[in-house]
């Protein structure tokens, strides 16, 4: 039943060794992705370049400037002296936030009136604008409360206070959130691409047909092509996990054995997608294009970068149909929350189901292409 299996695996190893560029690229991808997503992409907003037009200039207004600066969100970069200059700082893109403190700021505070501070926000980056708005509101509120408290001679503590405690990722570090997801995305990408290309290459070269006239069994051929790339997929996952723990200091809270076990069910889906791609594509360029049909949604719609819950309903369901969605939940569960077997059972059952379905579908299509 498995006739030819070992010979195919053995031969496949030569292909891998003889094409060090592809292998190198594939091993480079996780390193690159990790650097980009781990270091560069920081979903927390800080150091927003800010322009200030202070028409008051007295001590109280300076104090307000300091509060902005000390929040850590704003870097007061420009101090301008006209409305035009203030506007220009945003239009030219030098600053994302512009604050105009009115000339009567101190007077209003002393008089017990209301000082109006104008804030201009660059809405072209909505994430920055939203967060800046929240922070600047919070600063104004805090300032107002302290003034009211002083005037009432009341204790300076607010009556209701929120004491948040973030579980599992106490510092809310972006790498902790991103990297487990990245493990899923890279593993899928590498396994899918390598599998698809390895099979399409044989199709293109006519060697697949040549093999079919030999007594090699179909199952032997299929597994012989899949196993080497499954091994690379496992290696890739191990590498990303080591980088995650070693370099980014994201500890694995749960069981590593469980993580390895559950990763296998995702590996099946990735192999299935690779095989499916190879049956759809007739050359390597097509294979790469088809592969992106799987890869792009897995990056954007799986909850890897953006929360699924805030997506429109059809997109939400599309996200639910992606294997990566479930694997990312499993990874975050085990790595960050220390979740156990039973906590993640529903995810694993769905993922395994998807794996069986994809691999089965792809294998039957693969058999048909040989006919």
């Amino acid at each position, binding site marked *: 039943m498995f006739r030819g299996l070992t010979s195919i695996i053995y*031969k496949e190893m030569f*292909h891998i060794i003889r094409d060090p560029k592809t292998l190198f690229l594939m091993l480079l991808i996780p390193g690159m992705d990790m650097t980009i997503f781990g270091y560069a992409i920081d979903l927390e907003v800080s150091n927003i370049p800010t322009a200030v037009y202070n028409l008051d200039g007295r001590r109280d207004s300076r104090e307000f400037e300091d509060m902005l600066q000390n929040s850590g969100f704003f870097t007061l970069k420009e101090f301008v002296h006209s409305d035009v200059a203030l506007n220009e700082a945003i239009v030219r893109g030098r600053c994302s936030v512009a604050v105009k403190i009115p000339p009567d700021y101190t007077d209003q505070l002393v008089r017990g009136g209301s000082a109006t501070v104008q804030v201009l926000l660059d809405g072209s980056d909505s994430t920055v604008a939203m967060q800046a708005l929240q922070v600047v509101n919070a600063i104004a509120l805090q300032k107002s409360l302290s003034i009211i408290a002083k005037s009432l001679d009341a204790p300076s503590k607010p009556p209701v206070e929120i004491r948040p405690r973030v579980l599992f990722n106490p510092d809310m570090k972006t790498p902790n959130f991103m990297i487990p997801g990245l493990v899923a995305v890279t593993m899928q990408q590498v396994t899918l691409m390598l599998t698809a290309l390895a099979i399409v290459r044989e199709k293109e070269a*006519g060697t697949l*047909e*040549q093999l079919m*006239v030999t*007594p090699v069994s179909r199952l032997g051929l299929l597994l012989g092509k899949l196993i080497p790339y499954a091994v690379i997929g496992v290696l890739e996952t191990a590498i990303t996990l080591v980088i995650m723990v070693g370099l980014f200091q994201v500890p694995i809270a749960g069981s590593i054995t469980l993580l390895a076990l559950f990763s296998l069910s995702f590996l099946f889906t990735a192999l299935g997608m690779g095989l499916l791609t190879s049956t759809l594509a007739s050359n390597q360029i097509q294979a790469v294009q088809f592969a992106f049909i799987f890869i792009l949604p897995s990056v954007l719609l799986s909850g890897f970068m953006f929360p699924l819950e805030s997506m429109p309903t059809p997109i939400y369901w599309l996200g639910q149909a992606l294997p990566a969605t479930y694997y990312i939940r499993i990874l975050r569960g085990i790595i960050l929350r220390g979740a156990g077997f039973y906590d993640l059972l529903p995810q694993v059952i769905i993922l395994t189901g998807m794996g069986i379905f994809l691999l089965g579908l792809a294998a039957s299509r693969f058999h048909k292409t040989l006919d």
Partner: protein
Amino acid sequence: MSPVIAAEGLTRRFGSFTAVDDVSFSIDQGSIFGFLGPNGSGKSTVIRMLCGLLRPSRGSASVLGHDIEREVETVKRSIGYMSQQFSLYADLSVMENLNFYARIYAIPRREMRNRIEEVIDIVGIGAYRKRLARHLSGGWKQRLALACALVHRPRLLFLDEPTAGIDPVARRELWNLLFDLSGRGVTFFVTTHYMDEAERCSHIAYIHFSKLIVCGTPNELKTLPEVTPEATIRLEVRCRMLAAAMRHMNALPYVQDATIFGDSLHALVLAGHERQLVRDLDAADFGPAAAAEISPSLEDVFVTLTRNRDAR
């Protein structure tokens, strides 16, 4: 002795297109069976059916005594196949390719070395053992492909246009190799476009628009009554200005067909008009003309048969 291949009404349809239509023939052991026909006439489809790559839509065939549908795995073990395009692993060396095929055919480990050395010896590729297949020239690639197809000592070899795109010297050497192997009892099923290669085959079949037109030894085909119909003879005509002379001859009432063949013309004319033809050519200023009777070439055979069929 039972035939090596026996095809009975072999038919293959792809959708509404019939690629191979009711083809029957049989091949005896040790023969070199040349399968001829224009591109797209169904040659490769026949090979692919006989190798078990495609299922026939209708009809049946047995290869080495085994049914190609029911006993396809048994068939695969004792045949070799060399496809049209070079289909070995370009990134593997000569030895690695040979090793791979030896393993795929499950040749016992202790025998493997001898077998590989044996085929290396047959095709003479010993000097290139370590070279990557992609760095071999066209002729050597074909020899390697042949070696890989021989490593399991097949009794029957299918070669799909084995000499397409290789130089004349390599072509001749490859044919010498085939004769050598044929002498050892290996049967060959070869497709080709080249008429001179067809002449070298012991048996020939001609397929045209999915249908088998004729099948037999080259001599049988050349003496077919349809090829040189009664009361006509084939002439080799020498004269000046061949192209103009050909047009002139085709307009003559007693000339049935005239074609340029190298530095002469081949013509099919009504018997008894040889002298008149020479006179007519001389009179039309193509002289001095000379005509001699010849037996038809295989090309003549196929052209005539195809025309007859199209006319019907």
